[in-house]
């Protein structure tokens, strides 16, 4: 509900501004990047785009892992998996955790978990067989 409130509030204002501007200065043309709302930041939209980009990258890494296993794919997988999971769990926290302190605690915990996960995966890639090889070996059981 708060998200819907924010969304409709953002939508109402540009419409009102646009109508007012058209009446006051009808000869003005509007080139340039589209305004995204009264005093809002682009952070959320960029975050969303980033999420999609990492998802696509991760998807591409799957056939890569099968066809050319090796350190490049191993480390890319470690990074993409960790980031995708971090952002995904972040959305879950945003949806279900309420209150300033619980939100802060949960997000801090998430950062710690993601940092550990990335560290562990890199450690595995460096000191052990690596992600691609490990999956292949596991499946050969």
């Amino acid at each position, binding site marked *: 509900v708060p998200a819907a*409130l924010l969304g409709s509030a953002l939508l109402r204002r540009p419409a009102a501004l646009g109508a007012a501007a058209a009446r006051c200065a009808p000869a003005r043309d509007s080139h340039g990047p589209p305004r995204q709302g009264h005093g809002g930041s682009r952070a959320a939209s960029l975050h969303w785009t980033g999420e999609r980009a990492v998802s696509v990258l991760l*998807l591409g890494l799957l056939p890569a892992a099968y066809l050319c296993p090796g350190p490049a794919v191993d480390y890319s997988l470690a990074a993409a998996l960790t980031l995708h*999971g971090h952002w*995904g769990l972040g959305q879950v926290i945003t949806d279900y955790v309420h209150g300033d302190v619980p939100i802060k605690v949960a997000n801090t915990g998430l950062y710690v978990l993601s940092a550990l996960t990335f560290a*562990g995966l890199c450690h595995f890639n460096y*000191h*052990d*067989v690596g992600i691609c090889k490990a999956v292949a*070996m596991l499946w050969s*059981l």
Partner: protein
Amino acid sequence: MGTTAREEMSRFWEKNSHSNRPLSPHITIYKWSLPMAMSIAHRGTGIALSLGISLFSVAALLLPEHFPHYLAQVRALSLGPALLFSAKFLLAFPFSYHTWNGVRHLV
């Protein structure tokens, strides 16, 4: 120009959390639909996969031996093919579901 959206949001939450109103039944009464079920399954598999990877990573950091050692231990257990297949299925199914449903979200 009146209140900002952020002010309106915090006023809403302050008023409603202080009044201790009961939560109206939602998931207990609403009829399940396929989109609902698929969405929560996507979230559930995502959480499970993420936690699984984190568990694997922390194990990689803490356990003394290397991966082939532990794999050999599992192999030595001589588990039946049915059990091995089931275990692989339990790993592969959430992964596949989340991946393909994820593609559905991307397109």
